[in-house]
């Protein structure tokens, strides 16, 4: 039996051929090393993310997450739900809390679930992977697994919004969370604790609908990392990763900048530091290659 077992909610963007499929590869590698078993929730559906409200309203949107929780309770009983995507985690946890606090909505939600032959107890804790790493596993255990320290790599810990607010990680401040910096240090890299833009919004879904306004914010996130001499950014969120990585050419064209800075996941760093191959760390999934990690992975 694995040391840690969770009921896993991977989310749409993690699927094969989707925008954070590389995240999933490095997460699986990281979990092998840390002996974390992920039991995927059978037949999970989209959480509605932070943009589902407009078309979905309240109850249909909450029902999406309720279905996932119900399926988890049914197929992976007594296992905490674990999500790797910030929006998945947030939507699911928010839905669980709303259903706990609002008996009216809960009653309606039960009726909606009954139409899919499901029932919900709604007692399952819902965790983000970063939360599990920091709180359950701990930096000590992570440090002990490091085979190839990330020496000489300066990494800006970009936490973003939704892994940080409104729930965040217990013991961390909303304005200046430290856990990515502590992780970078545990992996032998050089953290930038004073990175000013660590909780700056990247625009989220509005990067699609309001690209110019969002790219202006992304520019600030990248600029501050450059000012600190960062070699790369690390993030726990698929939306942050995508937004800060793939628009750099467009930002350069619009603003005359010359950004070309890799943005990786915490799991990418861990896979490399744990001595795994570039492939297992999904370095081939970088639109902007993380050369310094490639050199270490060999």
């Amino acid at each position, binding site marked *: 039996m694995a040391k840690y077992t969770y009921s896993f909610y991977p989310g749409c963007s993690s699927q094969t051929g989707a925008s954070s*499929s590389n995240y999933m590869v490095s997460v699986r590698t990281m979990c092998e090393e840390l002996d974390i078993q992920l039991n995927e929730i059978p*037949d999970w559906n989209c959480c509605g993310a932070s943009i589902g409200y*407009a078309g979905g309203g*309240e109850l249909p949107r909450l*029902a999406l997450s309720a279905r996932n929780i119900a399926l988890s309770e049914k197929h992976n009983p007594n296992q905490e739900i674990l999500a790797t995507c910030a929006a998945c985690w947030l939507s699911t946890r928010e839905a669980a809390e709303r259903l706990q606090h609002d008996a009216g909505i809960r009653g309606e939600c039960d009726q*909606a679930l009954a139409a899919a032959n499901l029932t919900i107890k709604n007692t399952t804790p819902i965790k983000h992977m970063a939360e599990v790493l920091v709180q359950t596993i701990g930096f000590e255990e992570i440090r002990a697994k490091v085979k190839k320290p990330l020496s000489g790599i300066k990494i800006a810990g970009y936490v973003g919004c939704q892994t940080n607010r409104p729930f965040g990680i217990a013991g961390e401040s909303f304005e200046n969370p430290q856990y990515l910096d502590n992780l970078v240090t545990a992996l032998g890299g050089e953290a930038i604790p004073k990175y000013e833009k660590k909780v700056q919004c990247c625009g989220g879904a509005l990067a*699609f609908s309001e690209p110019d306004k969002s790219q202006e914010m992304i520019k600030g996130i990248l600029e501050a990392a450059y000012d600190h001499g960062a070699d790369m950014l690390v993030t726990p969120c698929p939306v942050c990763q995508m937004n800060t990585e793939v628009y750099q050419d467009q930002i350069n064209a619009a603003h005359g900048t010359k950004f070309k800075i890799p943005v990786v996941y915490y799991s990418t760093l861990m896979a490399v530091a744990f001595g795994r191959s570039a492939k297992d760390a999904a370095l081939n999934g970088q639109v902007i290659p993380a050369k310094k990690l490639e050199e270490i992975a060999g």
Partner: protein
Amino acid sequence: MNTNVDNTAPAQKYRTSFLQEVEANVEEGHWVKMCMQCGVCSGSCPLGKHWEHPPQEIFMMIRAGKREAVLTSESMWMCTSCYNCIVRCPRGLPITHIMHGLAHYAKRVSLVPDNQQTAKFAQLFWNNLALKGRVNELRLGMALYFMNGLGEGIKTALKMKDIGIDLAKTKRMNPMELLGGHSIKDLSGFKNMLKKAQELEAARIQPQNA
């Protein structure tokens, strides 16, 4: 049950008080009266300079009965769901959800400004996930490029072409998704659930139509 929504019905019922209408019909709307107008939320929005009426002002306008001005505003569509406001508000208002709720309600009563880009994108997103239970990113992207018409779409698609190629090269986009793509198995149960939820919500918000 009649789910054909009469958009003027809520206005008739609550013509004396927009605050009451918001409390009854908008997600987390019952919190609005708790706002003490400190302005912390308004200073927290990342796209703040693009908000015609920042959250604090929206709450004031709701109490002042400015139904049309609030519901036709683009402001709440500028919300990036960053949750800055929620963790800072001294009165504990779930501001993010009220903004989302107002945006959805504006859609429900057909007061969203034409061409509101986030409103259009958000609807495409919902339609996309409701179809198969999971988001098909490629189709969503295509729909997004073309949501403002063919000419605009080709321009956007060309501008985005390099990003598409980058993502395809790194296997983070799969052209085959256009032909079907990921789906859940119990699609009929899923659709029944959403239909039921939509009916219940419509009945609750429009009791006079039940």
